[in-house]
């Protein structure tokens, strides 16, 4: 059994051999009202939801809790208060059922989401991780052997979607809404300049400011500018972010011999990003991997996938293990 409570989704999965029997997630809609995750509220809701999610996961899996062989949990990175709920609950289950406890790194799990459907990827591959909290280019040498080659210097890709979405009056998290509205818009209508940062890194803060001023100027001319151009705005903004995300990946592919390309994290649910990454892989004639939608945003299925490997290696932790906000 795997437990994920790093941000605002309470998720529990049950994995048996190679199959995920249940992957139950309770989302916390309440944060939309505040335009972002409120940590104390998130912690309270995890505490409130966790038993129901547990019961539902056990029911869906069709197994009896006495059959569980290990309990895995997200140790971090994430919100400390949220993580603590999952860690405390997991420790109690392990202690009470007298079975081992496995600590999982949330970012490793985002990558491992790939292995759920691709159990035998070709290494090394480049993995672009884009989520609400992270944007990294990762050189994956083996299942759990990586090197981070680039990161964002400020906001994460998902955060850029969410913050710009907020400027466009879209509800939090705005990523999925932008994706949906962009389908009906013109991606070439509005152009923005790309922030130049060294090596394989990213920066989204300049772009955010550009959009802010652009909207302000346009609204002076037409008070309804945002609403009447929402589809084109979403399409252009999404196009800018996706194109920008791909630039250092393409650069890296020229420099190294790469045997695969992958995109993971919440933003890997984005249609344009999936297609563009796939095209890049096709151009280089290498396999492309992306997790199934249900394993893109935070979920315990991906935690279970890491736990599966750790269980085989008997990589267990003791009951004094604590959550870590940062790794």
């Amino acid at each position, binding site marked *: 059994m795997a437990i994920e409570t790093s941000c605002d989704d309470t998720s529990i999965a049950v994995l048996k051999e190679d199959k995920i029997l249940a992957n139950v997630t309770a989302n916390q809609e309440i944060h939309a*009202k*505040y*335009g*972002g995750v*409120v940590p*104390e*509220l998130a*912690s*309270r809701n*995890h*505490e*409130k939801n*966790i*038993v*129901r999610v*547990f*019961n539902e996961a056990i029911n869906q899996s069709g197994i009896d*809790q006495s059959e569980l062989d290990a309990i895995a949990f997200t140790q971090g990175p994430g919100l400390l*208060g949220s993580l*603590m*709920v*999952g*860690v*405390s*609950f*997991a*420790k*109690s*289950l392990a*202690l*009470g*059922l*007298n079975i081992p406890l496995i600590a999982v790194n949330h970012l490793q799990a985002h990558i491992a989401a790939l292995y759920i459907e691709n159990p035998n990827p070709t290494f090394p591959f480049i993995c672009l991780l884009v989520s609400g909290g992270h944007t990294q280019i990762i050189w994956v040498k083996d299942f759990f052997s990586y090197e981070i080659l680039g990161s964002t210097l400020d906001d994460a890709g998902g955060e850029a979607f969410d913050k710009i979405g*907020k400027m466009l*009056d879209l509800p*939090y998290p705005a990523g999925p809404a932008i994706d949906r509205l962009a389908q009906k818009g013109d991606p070439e209508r509005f152009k923005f300049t790309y922030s130049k940062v060294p090596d394989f890194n990213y920066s989204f803060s300049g772009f955010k400011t550009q959009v802010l001023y652009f909207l302000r100027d346009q609204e002076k001319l037409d008070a309804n500018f945002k609403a009447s151009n929402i589809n084109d705005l979403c399409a252009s903004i999404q196009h800018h972010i996706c194109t920008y995300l791909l630039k250092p990946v393409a650069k890296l592919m020229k420099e190294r011999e790469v045997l695969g390309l992958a995109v993971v994290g919440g933003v890997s649910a984005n249609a344009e990003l999936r297609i563009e990454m796939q095209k890049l892989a096709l151009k280089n004639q290498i396999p492309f991997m992306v997790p199934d939608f249900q394993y893109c945003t935070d979920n315990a299925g991906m935690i279970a996938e890491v736990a599966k490997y750790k269980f085989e290696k008997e990589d267990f932790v003791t*009951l*004094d*293990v*604590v*959550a870590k906000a940062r790794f």
Partner: protein
Amino acid sequence: MPKVLGIETTGAFCSVALFNESRVIASKINKQANSHSSILHLLIQELLQEQHIKPSDLDAIALSSGPGSYTGLRIGSSSAKGLAIATGAKLISIPTHYGMLFNPTLPNDTKAFKHVICLTDARRNDVFATAYSLDKDRIGKTAVLDLTDELVQTQLNHSASIIIGSGAEKAEALLSPIHLYLKDDALHAANLFEPSTAKFANEEFEPLYDFGPLYEKEFYTNQKVSK
């Protein structure tokens, strides 16, 4: 004989205790402030091992359920619920201030006083406060009080009370000497023995899927509600 595990995580120190219906069998406290998240399960494990008891032998988990530190409340509650699910033990909730009334340092001769007021820290100048009669009946509700507030001070000085808990020190500096201040941190899992034994006998258990700690304070954020 039923076996009950008491858990106290609402204050600075975390403690656990094991009871049967007639006595406290053993208890443990860790006096390293705010290390609940690393210590709690080790304390439980050691306590049970020393008493040669398996987790599955537990009949109930008695939780000091708040108010107190939010993080502490959640560590206690998530842990108690997890342990109850895993072992099939029942969950018993004892409001933290009510549990404090069973603290052994309370004087036997209390005739000079009319009430016991439990005060625990609620950050800034605030304390969580609950008043009880000497017969341990609660008077009104648990409140969040600002002890520097003169109206609050006047009210609290209205009649002599025994003031206990981590807020007693703060109170002693601000209130009149008519009260008896017991500044010892009155929180300990062993205090849960009497009230949880009574609840166990009456089968007053909490539904696991619905239980939550007693925060006793509206959640507050600076984050603006967006349009």
